């Protein structure tokens, strides 16, 4: 859009101002201060966006009565934008086309292209205040356009990378808070190192312990050496002590032996032997005398005892009877007991025979066969007979049960047939099924009929609705007719009266009626055609539906047969009694019942067939029973039982007979044994009588035999005792006499030996022999003692071969002094042992401690851990170094990016700024992710906005606005730029540079209105051929106002 003329009818200080703007891009408008330059800038803004709604203190609007217009050239066409004050809006806008074409819709929106008033104020129409303030560029959309709507993917990557770098650094090491992976690892490393330093003590401790162990080893060796010396001294003293006693005794014995007289060939143990001979002689003489006396006394006592002769002959027989007496007594008791046993058996047998009847006797029992074979034969026949009976009764029971079952079923089937009023089940079932099918088909047809009827109704309704739409409402015809009459009337009236206006109006009315009528007819035709088509379609559908209804009705009538009509009556009801659904239900029930009855009938037929088979079988069973009974009767006859006896009865009789036979056999055995026992007692008593007859020569009654036997027993006992005593006395007498003879010989031998001993000892008598014996014994004792002492001395000397003791030592030996010396040495050795033990204990403890230290692997573990931590630390250090390197790399990359990859707006601004500042400042950029401007000067220094001078800052903001206008233009928005005294603070050179920049900028097609109060700028522009516009001064304005008032 480009402004061509401004018509300010009334706005602020301006009234009836007309400004034509030349075609050249840059329009410099000169006016002194308070000439109304800013008002003009606001007027332009008001034309585009409306009058301001602000009000004065008295409540009147600032733009009260404002009115003006602006001619614009937009897309090759010219328009006028006229805005009139309206207190309720921001003014009424009227747009008119200044060429022959109509005004397009949304023209203003097309011109502004979405640029809001705020942006227009901050970018396109700016005054000195806006150009001086950074905040006007820091808000909303303007800022977005300066700093880039987005950072772009690369910028975003850089920002995110910076964030990740910060996180990575914090994770690794945060020196201020002493946290991070590195801190943890270093602490762990230090801890392990400290523990390892503690472990170093272990090595020192081990060395000290080893030294102590060596010292103790040396001490033990020293002790042992000393112990060996003391033990040697002790051994010497002990040896002296051991040797001196035997040595002195040897000396004494040798001296005594030398003084003793020599007795040669003296019998060995002569005194002892002599005394022994004397003692043996005395004992033998005394014993002989006592034996002779005893032998004589025994002989005299035996002669006094006499024995009866009769008992000598019959003693053994009596003794035999006495020996058998106890056994015979037992036999007698047994006989008595057997008698008691026989009686009950005999009675029991008699009872059994009475039970069996008179035909049974003990003799018959003996001949009766009770063997297992006979019993088995009887059991077999009985079992066959009983099985035949059992089979017959089973068949009879089955026949009875089947007969009852068949009767019940027959009754049930007949009842069902009567209930359903059928003569035959199969025929009734077929009829019922056919009726059921017909009824179901009828139901379906009825439903289909109802649906078709419903569809027919809807078709009728739609047809009625379509037919109704074909009719135009009557008022249409009424209005048309009314207008037509009025038009014709007015036309005729005009023709008659000659009034041209009336003719025209009437003609217009008539034409209007014709037109409306035509339109109505056309619309009617258009819509009726469609409705007619739809109606024809509905009619076709209706015909088809009617045909279907007719077919359905025909099928229904065919289905309603007399058979179907009789269904109701078959249930005993009138035809209208049940609904169709009820009828279908009942027919289905009947069909099910009849099917059930049919099944029952089949079962009944099979049962009847089975009954006939059983009856044939019954006859066969009867024949089997007859045969078995005949066999049974034959067996009874053979056994001697009643032929008519039943099986149980026969077996009962068999049992009694077997028991009777058993009793008979037992009774016979008892009787045989009883007779035998009685015979034994009788023969014993007869033997007693026979001995009595021989002994006393009298006949003894058998009843008194036992009394005689008792008397014989006493006499026989006395005889045996006397006889035994006499034999003993005789034997003793003989023995004593023989012994006395032996003792006499012994006395003689002893006397001979004693005499020989005296001769051998060189003595004539007992006393002399004793004296010589004493001398000989002493000499022998001395020699033996001397030998033993020498051996003892030898042993003592040989107990310690290392020691050498001389005669002089022994002579100089003093017992007390030696004993004291031994005690002293022993005490010292004891002390030394104790010390040695203690040292050994210390050494053992030390060795244990050393072993413990050596087995401790804590140091290895710690060093392993330290290496692990060191590896982790190295890794973390590598990570830290890499992170820092990455940080520096990213920082460099970011710097490069910020300077080279800025938004295009800032790139354009940099270009403008460089020209505005005559190359002093060459680059405008912004840090990533921040809304702050940085400016690089020609010495590669980077400055912030605050560091710039006021003029440079304004040049920067102007450059940015120029860049923004270019950016918006690239997006299709071209609006005039109005700059109100923005060059006030520029120095001469930069003002001229700014003018050049704006001129070049305008030459690119941008319209720039530069208001200035500096005449030289206007004059310089004039010199350059720009034709500045000289705004009227204040006086001129006042004159204009007065002229307007006038």
């Amino acid at each position: 859009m480009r402004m061509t003329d401004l018509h300010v009818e009334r706005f602020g200080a301006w009234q009836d101002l007309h400004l034509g703007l030349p075609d050249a891009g840059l329009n410099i408008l000169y006016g002194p201060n308070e000439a109304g330059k800013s008002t003009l800038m606001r007027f332009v803004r008001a034309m585009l966006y409306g009058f301001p709604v602000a009000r004065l203190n008295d409540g009147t609007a600032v733009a009260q009565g404002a009115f003006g217009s602006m001619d614009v050239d937009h897309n090759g066409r010219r328009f006028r934008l006229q805005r009139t004050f309206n207190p309720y809006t921001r003014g009424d806008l009227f747009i008119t086309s200044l060429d022959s074409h109509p005004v397009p819709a949304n023209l203003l929106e097309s011109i502004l292209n979405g640029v809001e008033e705020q942006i227009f104020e901050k970018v396109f129409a700016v005054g000195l205040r806006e150009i001086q303030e950074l905040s006007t560029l820091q808000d909303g959309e303007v800022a977005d356009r300066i700093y880039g709507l987005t950072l772009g993917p690369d910028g975003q990557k850089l920002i995110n990378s910076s964030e990740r770098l910060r996180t990575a650094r914090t994770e690794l090491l945060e020196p201020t808070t002493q946290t991070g992976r590195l801190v943890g690892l270093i602490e762990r490393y230090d801890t392990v190192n400290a523990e390892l330093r503690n472990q170093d003590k272990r090595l020192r401790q081990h060395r000290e312990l080893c030294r102590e162990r060596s010292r103790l080893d040396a001490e033990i060796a020293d002790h042992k050496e000393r112990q060996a010396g003391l033990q040697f001294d002790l051994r010497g003293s002990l040896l002296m002590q051991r040797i001196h006693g035997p040595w002195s005794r040897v000396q004494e014995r040798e001296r005594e032996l030398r003084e003793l007289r020599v007795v040669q060939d003296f019998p060995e143990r002569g005194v002892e032997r002599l005394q022994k001979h004397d003692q043996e002689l005395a004992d033998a003489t005394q014993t002989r005398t006592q034996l002779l006396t005893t032998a004589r006394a025994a002989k005299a006592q035996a002669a006094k005892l006499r024995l009866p002769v009769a008992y000598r002959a019959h003693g053994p027989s009596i003794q035999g009877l006495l020996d058998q007496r106890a056994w015979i007594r037992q036999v007698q008791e047994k006989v008595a007991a057997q008698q008691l046993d026989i009686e009950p058996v005999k009675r029991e047998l008699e009872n059994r025979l009475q039970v069996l009847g008179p035909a049974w006797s003990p003799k018959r029992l003996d001949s009766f066969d009770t063997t297992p074979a006979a019993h088995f034969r009887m059991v077999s026949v009985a079992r066959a007979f009983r099985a035949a009976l059992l089979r017959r009764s089973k068949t009879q029971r089955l026949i009875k049960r089947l007969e009852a079952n068949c009767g019940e079923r027959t009754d049930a089937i007949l009842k069902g047939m009567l209930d359903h009023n059928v003569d035959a089940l199969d025929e009734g079932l077929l009829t019922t099924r056919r009726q059921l099918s017909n009824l179901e088909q009828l139901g379906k047809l009825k439903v289909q009929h109802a649906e078709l009827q419903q569809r027919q109704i809807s078709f009728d309704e739609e047809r009625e609705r379509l037919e109704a739409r074909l009719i135009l409402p009557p008022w249409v015809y009424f209005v048309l007719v009314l207008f037509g009459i009025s038009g014709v009337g007015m036309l005729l009236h005009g023709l008659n009266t000659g009034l041209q206006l009336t003719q025209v109006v009437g003609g217009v009315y008539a034409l209007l009626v014709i037109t409306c009528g035509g339109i109505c007819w056309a619309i009617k035709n258009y819509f009726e055609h469609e409705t007619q088509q739809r109606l024809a379609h509905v009619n076709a559908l209706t015909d088809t539906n009617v045909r279907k209804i007719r077919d359905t009705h025909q099928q229904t009538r065919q289905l309603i047969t007399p058979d179907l009509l009789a269904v109701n009556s078959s249930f005993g009801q009138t035809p209208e009694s049940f609904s169709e659904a009820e009828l279908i239900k009942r027919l289905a029930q009947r069909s099910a019942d009849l099917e059930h009855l049919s099944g029952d009938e089949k079962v009944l037929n099979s049962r009847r067939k089975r009954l006939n088979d059983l009856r044939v079988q019954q006859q066969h069973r009867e024949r089997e029973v007859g045969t078995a009974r005949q066999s049974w009767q034959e067996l009874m006859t053979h056994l001697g039982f009643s032929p008519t006896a039943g099986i149980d009865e026969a077996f009962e009789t068999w049992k009694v007979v077997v028991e009777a036979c058993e009793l008979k056999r037992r009774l016979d055995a008892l009787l045989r044994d009883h007779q035998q026992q009685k015979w034994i007692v009788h023969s014993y008593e007869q033997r007693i009588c026979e001995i009595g007859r021989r002994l006393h020569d009298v006949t003894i009654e058998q009843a008194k035999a036992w009394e005689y036997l008792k008397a014989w027993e006493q006499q026989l006992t006395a005889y045996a005792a006397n006889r035994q005593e006499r034999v003993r006395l005789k034997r003793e007498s003989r023995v004593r006499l023989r012994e006395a003879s032996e003792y006499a010989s012994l006395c003689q031998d002893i006397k001979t030996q004693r005499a020989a001993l005296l001769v051998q000892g060189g003595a004539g008598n007992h006393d002399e022999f004793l004296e010589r014996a004493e001398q000989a014994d002493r000499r022998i004792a001395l020699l033996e003692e001397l030998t033993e002492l020498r051996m003892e001395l030898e042993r003592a000397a040989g107990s310690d071969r290392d020691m050498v003791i001389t005669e002089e030592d022994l002579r100089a030996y003093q017992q007390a002094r030696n004993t004291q010396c031994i005690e002293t040495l022993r005490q010292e050795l004891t002390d030394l042992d104790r010390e040695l033990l203690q040292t050994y204990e210390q050494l053992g403890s030390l060795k244990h401690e050393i072993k413990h230290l050596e087995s401790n692997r804590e140091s290895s573990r710690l060093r392993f851990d330290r290496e692990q931590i060191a590896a982790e630390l190295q890794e973390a250090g590598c990570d830290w170094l890499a992170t820092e390197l990455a940080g520096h790399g990213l920082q460099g990359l970011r710097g490069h990016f910020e300077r080279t990859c800025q938004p295009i707006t800032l790139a354009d601004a940099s270009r403008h700024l460089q020209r505005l500042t005559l190359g002093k400042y060459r680059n405008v950029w912004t840090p990533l992710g921040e809304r702050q401007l940085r400016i690089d000067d020609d010495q590669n220094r980077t400055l912030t906005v605050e560091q710039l001078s006021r003029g440079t800052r304004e040049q920067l903001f102007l450059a940015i606005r120029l860049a923004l206008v270019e950016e918006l233009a690239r997006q299709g928005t071209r609006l005039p730029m109005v700059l109100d005294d923005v060059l006030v603070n520029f120095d001469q050179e930069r003002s001229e540079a700014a003018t050049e920049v704006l001129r070049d900028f305008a030459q690119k097609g941008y319209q720039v209105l530069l208001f200035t109060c500096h005449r030289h700028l206007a004059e310089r522009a004039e010199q350059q051929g720009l034709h500045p516009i000289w705004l009227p001064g204040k006086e001129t304005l006042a004159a204009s106002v007065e002229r307007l008032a006038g």
Partner: protein
Amino acid sequence: MPLEPFRFLHAANLFLDHQLQGVGRVPDHLRDCIEQATLTAWERVVDAAIARQVDFLLLAGNCFDAADHTLTGQVALVQGLEKLNEHDIPVFIVPGVSDPDTAWRLAMSLPDNVTRFGGELSESIGLSRDDRTFCTIHHVMANTQDLNASDGNGLDELAVFAPHLAPDEAGPFDIALLETIANNAALPPELQEAELALSESRYGRNGKLNRPAFDPEIVSRCPIEYWALGDGFRRQAWRVGRGMAHTPGCTQGLSAADTGPLGCTLVEVESDGRVRESFIPTARVRWENIAVTVTGQVTRDAIMQQIRSGLDAIPRTSQDELWLVTWNISGSGRFYEDLQDQACAERLWNDALQSVGSQNPQIHLRKVRFANPMDGQAGADFLSQEYARQLGEWAAPADMKDRIIAASSLAEGPWASRMKTVLAEVDSQDAVQAAQRLGWAWLKTGM
């Protein structure tokens, strides 16, 4: 006259009870194995000496690290020596840089079968069998000189002083056992004017070892058949004059640089003077590297197959119980980017191992390393290219670490010195690559 055949074991760098570095996080069940790795290696050396009935054992330095102050290590050493004593196997020990003579003086007393050289030049020792000397061991000293600090490899220059030994004083077979002393340690007076038989060779603890340059003229005058070296973490052997020089490397690798099987050397001397050396593995824990290249079209199964193939390609020894593997991934493409997520890479690794079946030895992934991510991003977007350029300005200077600390928020605080210590162990190149990955990931996702 023919030589008396004999054999001996040559081991060095036991570093008893020294803990492995850069293992990373390990599960509990592997801890004991790693913690006692050096001790186990020593036990295996002892067992090998006994099993092979060697005539003597040479321990050529660095039996332990004095800085560890380890009692366990000393106890293990003495126990092993006592065990050798029970089998009448003499042991000759020289100190190394990590276990200087002073540290030995403070250590535990040694059994009678041990001859420890050190501190000062010792007399040569002749070993005899049936009253016939078959070998003479000479104590030789070497001095290290620190290279300039900017080298960054921790290499030391080694100056080996030739032994004062005339050719006519030579025995049937002469062995020089080399003691390395630190540069700041005082040289014995008799070595002040000695000739340097070996100089300008570099030993390093980072697995880099230049072949020592023996002076042929001086060496030709030394009747040494076998130079037993200790320092140097790589197993090497080379001809020197009339004999050979050998360093057996470590018995147990201590860091990720010590890859491959490690152990000691069995040296067998034939009657004709020929020397045959054979490697005896002792390391319980082994460090290995697996390289996998991920291209844009590669599938997950193909990468797993690469892993399996890489593992299969590593020759196993019977002594291996655990492998600590570094997985080097290079390539480009979407899959490569996904793998840069540590969890994703570990998951893939575990899946690959599971399909291997039974693991003997056990395999533990200690670290995943990626090639420079920007290498494969030549055509990357503007941000990535500019980021790499900006990073390059910081990463290139030698004093990068100091500059970074000075530019950080730590510069003014007490953490600066601490961070310097921490960063001293950090590989600058790793950090630069990590920074590249980090920035690239941030800029890629932008979230």
